[in-house]
């Protein structure tokens, strides 16, 4: 299913329907009437039930005022017979959008959400609808969704952002200088990135809403790259390349000060830090075994040790680790027979499994639900961003363009954090 990006072309119903589909927690089947959609379970532990969405006239009009009333008169036995567990009504009552989730088995309404959405041309419209979809998912399954999230990525040396459903792509780079490695702050209101400038790599912190950017303390003296925020947003870890090689450092974000060195590689490089969600540990890449592999240490730089096991002389280079928001996994890519594949490390058992095998696949980034990954793949013939659901194995392109790379998936975006300038 491909997104339409024109505001006027995409109704609330279509956006919510696609969001629920992209959650990979429902099986959605359109009924013969064409106006209702049935959702069947996908066999995952969290959604063994099947679900169904029924949609009544979403564009207002006749459905309008009577919408909420008519949904209570849903023919539950019919939906039960169809094997549906849920039906979702999206109706309009004046300027209020009403979302009603029916529990088919219980023959009643599970939850009703009323929202005054911005006008469809408003920059905040889509994110408001995505939040509605997440509320529906939360009501049905008790789990938070990922519809109200965005992905930062790099194309032609510039940083862009895009909604998780592939709509509303926007340039967020504020200069023409070449940029790399965007990373979200934990609050979703800031991001950091690296910019080439006068032979150095500069790290900048930028406010998403205003575009205001600040050079990080001590940057500009060397090649600084791969910034990563600590979960509390207080610390920025990054790689710094000097004549001694590349090592990991941190600075205090709030006071923009207090450079601290975490690794002393001497004859090896240490780079690409990623914090555990409790902020206690940092996974990173180290070339100390010869080829780059995935290591881990305490956040203060002590207790450095191998993280993702490998066979010396056999396993290829491993890079680009990202710790999952639930703390249980670290995704990374590894050279397999001359091309890159996405792997996932189980943090508890320290075992790895290969996730991809078609084409070249790299730079994975976790969705806040810790079950979806966005990554770069050339499986279609050119490099573009794809999203895979680890539970179902379902995969979809994030957008139909080429040249995207270095994706970074946002945390869940609250109303405040997703506001536009």
């Amino acid at each position, binding site marked *: 299913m491909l997104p339409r990006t024109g505001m006027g072309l995409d109704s609330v119903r279509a956006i919510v329907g696609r969001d629920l589909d992209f959650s990979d927690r429902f099986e959605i089947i359109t009924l013969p009437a064409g106006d209702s959609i049935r959702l069947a379970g996908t066999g995952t532990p969290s959604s063994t039930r099947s679900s169904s969405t029924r949609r009544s006239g979403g564009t207002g009009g006749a459905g309008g005022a009577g919408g909420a009333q008519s949904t209570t008169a849903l023919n539950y036995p019919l939906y039960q017979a169809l094997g549906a567990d849920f039906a979702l009504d999206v109706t309009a009552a004046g300027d209020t959008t009403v979302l009603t989730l029916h529990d088919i088995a219980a023959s009643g309404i599970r939850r009703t959400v009323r929202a005054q959405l911005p006008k469809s041309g408003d920059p905040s419209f889509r994110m408001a609808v995505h939040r509605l979809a997440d509320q529906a998912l939360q009501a049905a399954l008790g789990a938070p969704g990922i519809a109200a999230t965005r992905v930062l990525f790099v194309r032609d*040396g510039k940083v862009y952002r895009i909604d998780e459903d592939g709509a509303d792509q926007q340039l967020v780079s504020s200069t023409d200088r*070449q940029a*790399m*490695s965007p990373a979200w702050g934990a609050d979703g209101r800031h991001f950091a990135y690296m910019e*080439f400038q006068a*032979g*150095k*790599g500069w790290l900048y912190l930028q406010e998403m809403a205003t575009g205001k950017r600040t050079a990080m303390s001590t940057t500009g003296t060397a*090649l600084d*790259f*791969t910034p990563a925020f600590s979960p509390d947003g207080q610390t920025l870890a990054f*790689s710094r*390349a*000097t*004549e001694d*090689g*590349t090592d990991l450092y941190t600075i205090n974000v709030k006071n923009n000060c207090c450079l601290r060195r975490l690794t002393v590689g001497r004859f090896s*490089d240490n*780079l*690409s830090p990623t914090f555990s969600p409790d902020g206690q540990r940092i996974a990173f*890449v180290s*070339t100390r075994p010869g*080829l*780059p592999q995935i290591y881990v240490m305490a956040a203060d730089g002590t207790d450095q040790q191998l993280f993702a096991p490998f066979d010396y002389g056999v396993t290829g*280079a491993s*890079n*680009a680790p990202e710790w999952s928001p639930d703390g249980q996994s670290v995704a990374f*890519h590894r050279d397999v027979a*001359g091309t*890159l594949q996405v792997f996932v490390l189980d943090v508890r058992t320290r075992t790895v499994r290969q996730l991809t095998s078609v084409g070249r696949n*790299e*730079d994975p980034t976790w969705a806040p639900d810790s079950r979806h990954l966005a990554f770069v793949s050339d499986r279609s013939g050119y490099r573009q961003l794809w999203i895979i659901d680890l539970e179902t194995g379902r995969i979809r392109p994030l957008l139909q363009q080429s040249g995207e*790379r*270095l994706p970074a998936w946002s945390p869940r975006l609250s109303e405040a954090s997703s506001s536009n300038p």
Partner: protein
Amino acid sequence: MKSVSLFLALGLGAAIVVASSCGGKKPAQTAPTPNADSAAAADKARQDSIDAANAAAAAEAERLRRQREADSLAALSAAAGEVRNMLASMIHFDLDKSNIRSDDMGALDQKVAILQANPDLRIRIGGHCDERGSDEYNLALGNRRAQSAKQYLVSHGIDAGRIETQSWGEEKPLVDGHDESAWSQNRRAEFEVVSGGDNLRRP
């Protein structure tokens, strides 16, 4: 020209100055009398002709010197361009490696000689990678390559303070393409002049 005249005035002219002041202001009228004054006048006349001859010779010498200078400026300029080209010649690396290849040592030795012959010259070495590795890892690898080239120059006696380094990872490919030919050309270190590169002397 001026330096030549000045030399005569100071050296041979010392006695003349004394003679002139003794002989008063009309040396021509006293010429028939073979006295000290007329001898001085004769000396003066002889000296004047020597001066004139010297001046002519000096003018010719100056003309030749300017000609030689013009010729050598052209030569220097040509040499500077040649030196600049030698300095800018790239070196290359094996896949995921940063060690200097033996076939590049000659080019680096040449850069050492150029840096030695031009003490004001400062350069920047940029490390680059092919597109096959990881995008971010390649920044560290490009840095290793630039440092490796710098280390070679430093170990051959060049002051480390004259050499800056930077890494572009795989962000600035020299050749577009997705085959070994393109990759091998893109795994490189580039050398550029930071300052002191205006009239490069041949080593």
